[in-house]
């Protein structure tokens, strides 16, 4: 019995020290003088612009990665094309790659001397680069959730629908999509969390121009490290943390109950 309590308090204590204490402290620091400083810091035009940019990028990146994720999952599981094994491995790459390396790779491709240098519109240090970086790092999540479910449901129902004369699109819409909808929803939540919070890759390629190419995570860093505006940094952090907690609630709602696989990465 002693061993059990020791283990319980050891594990919970570790969680408390490593995880909870820092997060609780940031809320305390932000609200220690009440709501007013928080509200003032959040409604600062630079912060508002940063939040807007973050939301815009997320609203574009998430739907694109969702459609790609479903198509890619179908291609990996249902159509045994020759190169799909390689694609399956490559999809995981953003999980194992440093965000800074992702940013550097974009600079090498789109920068002077790169393969895609000299496009008619500006890529680096503007909106397209931020979007590309965000899409790159949040690419694997929907695929990773959809693939195992597609494997598990098998093809019996889809084949039955096909023999009854349903077109392949009707089969997808009426049979496959309803079966994978929770996996897709969970993948979307993870994609959203990553898009809202991406920092490393974006900070390399965005140029970090206040009021133009500064996302909310960049704003936090800039406010703290360069402007010495602690209240601003803490307040924007709390805003991001609240978005994270909302995401967490959605994750808990959508996570398949029986199996909590851990390899969804971050």
């Amino acid at each position, binding site marked *: 019995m002693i061993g*059990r309590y020791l*283990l*319980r308090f050891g*594990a*919970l204590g*570790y*969680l408390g020290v*490593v*995880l909870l*204490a*820092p*997060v609780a*402290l*940031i809320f305390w620091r932000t609200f220690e003088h009440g709501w007013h400083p928080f509200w003032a810091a959040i409604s600062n035009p630079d912060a508002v612009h940063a939040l807007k940019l973050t939301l815009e990028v997320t609203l574009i990146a998430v739907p694109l990665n969702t459609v790609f994720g479903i198509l890619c999952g179908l291609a990996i599981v249902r159509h045994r094309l020759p190169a799909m094994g390689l694609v399956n*491995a490559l999809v*995981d790459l953003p*999980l*194992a*790659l*440093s*965000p*800074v*390396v992702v*940013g*550097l*790779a974009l*600079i*090498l491709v789109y920068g002077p001397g*790169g393969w895609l240098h000299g496009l008619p519109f500006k890529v680096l240090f503007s909106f397209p680069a931020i979007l590309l970086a965000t899409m790159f790092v949040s690419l694997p999540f929907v695929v990773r959730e959809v693939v195992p479910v597609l494997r598990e449901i098998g093809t019996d129902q889809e084949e039955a629908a096909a023999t009854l004369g349903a077109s392949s699109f009707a089969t997808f819409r009426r049979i496959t999509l309803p079966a994978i909808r929770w996996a897709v929803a969970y993948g979307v939540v993870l994609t959203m*969390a990553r898009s*809202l*919070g991406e*920092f*490393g890759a974006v*900070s*390399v390629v965005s140029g970090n121009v206040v009021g133009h190419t500064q996302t909310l*995570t960049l704003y*936090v*860093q800039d406010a*703290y490290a360069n402007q010495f505006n602690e209240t601003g*940094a*803490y307040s924007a*952090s709390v805003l*991001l*943390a609240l978005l*994270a*907690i909302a995401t*967490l*609630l959605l*994750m*808990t709602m959508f996570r398949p109950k*029986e*199996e*909590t*696989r*851990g*390899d*969804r*990465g*971050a």
Partner: protein
Amino acid sequence: MKGAGGGWAHFWDAASNPEAVAALKLTLWLSAGVVAINALSGTAIAWVLVRDRFAGKGLVNALIDLPFALPTIVASLTLLALYSPRSEIGKHVAYTRIGLLLALLFVTLPFVVRTVQPVLLELDREMEEAAASLGAGRLAIFRRVVFPNLLPAVLSGVALAFARAIGEFGAVVLISGNRPFKTEVASLYIFGRVNTDPAGAAALSVELLVISLAVLLSIGGIRRWATRHDR
């Protein structure tokens, strides 16, 4: 990648820069520490979440995913708030290697828990009961029955944690202080040289890329090894 654009000699020059070597070494040591601590704490947390019963377990279970949901820069700022000189607890590990280790432990916490948990849930309790009825002590049961079953999950969890730790940037950027040879990790070295020394940045990036790919392949290998009886 274009890191080798100037040929091997050029790459070797950039990669053997003493500052780059120190940054890579520090990164690998920290990641090794992250692996060792996560293997223990992650398994213990998963065990408590599956086998123990206490009030608020559902909440704790949901909290495990917090580092995945929380933006890394926020994690960095929260850790700095806790461990900086003006912190309430009076522990000043900001701008030290201990601070870096704590930041990496924060962001990698869910990996081992979330790989071990489902395996523990599915583990057949009858095996342990059989071992107990045959007179095995609790330590022997864990070592001979439970541990071999958990090993593939622990390994793939720590491999993911390792891959995350070697590349982590957001969580360490504020807390490291970025002192060359002391607290400068690989991602910070790369970031600092993107504009001033792209060749140097690319060389260390290629090294990280190779390590990441090796880890990715080993995770695939562990998965195949773990499911070798399934099909």
